[in-house]
């Protein structure tokens, strides 16, 4: 009921790449989204990166909802790329299918030429200053949750905002209040951009 009207994907299927650098909370976001799917009864499988690559290097997770049990997403087939870092967003672009969306934590946003070129390649770009918003909350570390709030408000995935919020509240009890503030801030950002008609740049 609180969701924004956007390009709808298939109602119960999605392939998502979550990208960032070690320590940004890529695995946390992936697990919350997967748990949301599980609670809704949607079959999901996730692939994470552990070990050596965690030490400050590029990391990505794959999340597949309702599309089989293979853990990895083939390049050129992802619906959504959720990037906590601009560089990692660009690096992981080849995963997207034609018509896919890049949702990226970036300020002021990707360069106009890049966005224009990607539009030509049928990739929509949605830039959100998630770190800026999180810093205003006094915790730059929750930029990942801000961006997830933005994502959930846009219903780019078959996961309603309230269900994501619920899974988030259970996932990290030690910083429940902060996470809930962050996810709300992400939702407000989504509404703000909707009002400004800046959604699909």
């Amino acid at each position, binding site marked *: 009921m609180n969701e924004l009207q956007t390009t709808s994907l298939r109602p119960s299927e999605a392939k998502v790449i979550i990208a960032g650098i070690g320590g940004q909370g890529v695995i946390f976001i992936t697990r919350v989204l997967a748990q949301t799917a599980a609670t809704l009864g949607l079959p999901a499988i996730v692939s994470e990166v552990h070990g050596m*690559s965690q*030490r400050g290097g590029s990391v990505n997770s794959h999340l597949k909802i309702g599309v*089989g*049990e293979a853990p990895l997403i083939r*390049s050129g087939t992802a619906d959504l790329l959720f990037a906590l870092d601009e560089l*990692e967003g660009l690096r992981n672009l*080849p995963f*997207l299918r*034609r018509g896919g969306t890049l949702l990226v934590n970036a300020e002021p946003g990707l360069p106009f030429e890049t966005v224009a070129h990607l539009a030509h390649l049928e*990739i929509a770009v949605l830039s959100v200053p998630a770190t800026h918003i999180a810093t205003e909350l006094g915790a730059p570390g929750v930029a990942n949750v801000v961006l997830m709030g933005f994502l959930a408000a846009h219903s780019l995935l078959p996961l309603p905002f309230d269900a994501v919020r619920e899974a988030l509240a259970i996932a990290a009890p030690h910083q429940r209040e902060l996470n809930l503030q962050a996810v709300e801030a992400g939702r407000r950002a989504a509404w703000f951009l909707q009002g400004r008609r800046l959604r699909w740049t």
Partner: protein
Amino acid sequence: MKYEVLLGNQAIALGLVEQGCRVVTSYPGTPSSEILAGVVKFQQRLGRDVYTEWSINEKVAFETALACSWSGLRSAVAMKQVGLNVASDPLFSAAYTGVRAGLVVIPADDPGPFSSQTEQDSRLTALTAKVPVFDPSSPLEARAMIRHAFELSERFRMPVMVRPTTRLCHACQAMSLDGDGLAEHSGDGVQFLKDPSRWAATPRLRYRLHVELSDKLRQVETAFAESSLNAVLDGDVLGKVGVIASGVAFHTAREALRELGVAVPALKIGTPYPLPQQLVRNFVAAHHTVVVLEEPDACIELQLPDRSQVHGRLDGTVPAAGELAPEVISEVLAHVLTAAGYEINRSAENPELQAFVSGLSLPVRAPRLCPGCPHRSAFFALKREFGAKTIFPSDIGCYTLGVNMGAVDTCVDMGASVSMASGFYLANRLGGNTQPIVATIGDSTFLHSGIAPLLNAVHTGARFVLVILDNQTTAMTGFQPTPASGTLADGSPAARQVGIAGIVRGCGVAFVEPADPYDHSHFRGVLRRAYQHSQAPEGGVAVVIAERPCTLHDAQLLRQNPLPVAIAETCDGCRYCLEAFGCPALVLRTDGSRVDIEPNLCVACGQCISVCPKGSIVAQTADS
């Protein structure tokens, strides 16, 4: 019913707990490390009594679990694939002797490889050792296969392997914690029953045990032929192309076929060894061409006596190395299907996007030692003290990343730094060279397999400096305790805390000195004296213990004494600190004019102050 998202390794752990496994031992190693931690978690949640142990190494872990099995307790041992090499001695022997209560061996393979020195296939180790293998394709199936494995192990009284791979270990799937009922296992009858003709069999009796083992394997093959874990799924039987796949590759292949818009039959193999030969032969005979997709090597393919219609790793149709990523499987299937005359759908490809991203030449973000890492300080001191002419043998752990600082010249396997240092000393002596040798090894790795080579070095009179990088935990794999850290796998206090210095002295090393790598000048002084001892007429191996807790694991010491830094105006962007020290918090400005401190990464360790030759990295003052 409540569904929880569990990691593949946790699903395996849940399987062990719910099947009444009483003893689980392990040594940490990616991608297997979360199995034992999962057992600790689920035995508490499900109220089961399971003994868990981070053993000193995989051989000890295996033998501990084996003795428990021989005493009537369901037991399991988990490790990464190269850990199975360490445990292979008891594995091969136990295949002959057999077991009493179920014994499940879980080596996690690492196709890629992502965190290992090899891409070896534990299924092939099992084939050589004559141990049956289950090859799960998903976390859910891995959990279920634990039950099959215990049942098979007890039916035939032999150790049984369940072999996951990285992508399964680190995949997450939702499942209910209420499985199909918990297997009960009482403590009754738990006792070692003497039978020297089996448990202490001499070579003559071993021959008879080998005959018995071969007979068991024939029966296992018959059981596997009837198992629902091996079955033909999907596809119209057109008789042209068939796919045989196991593990994660099965699901990837199935999805690739769907994307390519082709329906051909796929034979899923859940038990690759001993291979149900008749089943596979019938499938091959029903098709003109068969592709085998398996990881990381060719185990199913190798067991097929007639490969004239079969394509896979061995004939080069499937690449001989690397993981079977969706792109690889798609490419292989597209090639085989096109050759067989199928029309395939390649609409999912987006080459322009690939080209666009390649054109951006994005900088690679390789893994680096963390900000504040004591290993970085130790390596920096080693390089300054000994220079590039020194041979730096090193070992397995976070500190292998010291290769980026030019302070790691060799990395072979666990504990090899010490024996390689001995070997280089010998080669130098025989070749008349006097090159200094300074080896590095972590605390957990030293305890795992560094002690025996150190004893050997003392005994043979080798001369080198060994720096034990003691960060008081097994950092790389997620901070598991060691015998030196004083806690057990479940967090309870250890029976006794073992000191590394005492072990080193016990090996007969005369020079043993602990030093804090954060205290740069003192640490270098100790290194210098250690080197002098190694060269003195009465000297020998000298051991320096670099003591400083891992910054990620225990930041207490750092918080007590923070030393925030600033970059002075004199910085001219010469890049020395970036190359020689390489802390992620030191960042070169995009115009290359100078270096900045990245405040979100800096941990205020102050270690970079002594690095800048121009003194441009300074302690932050109130007004700076």
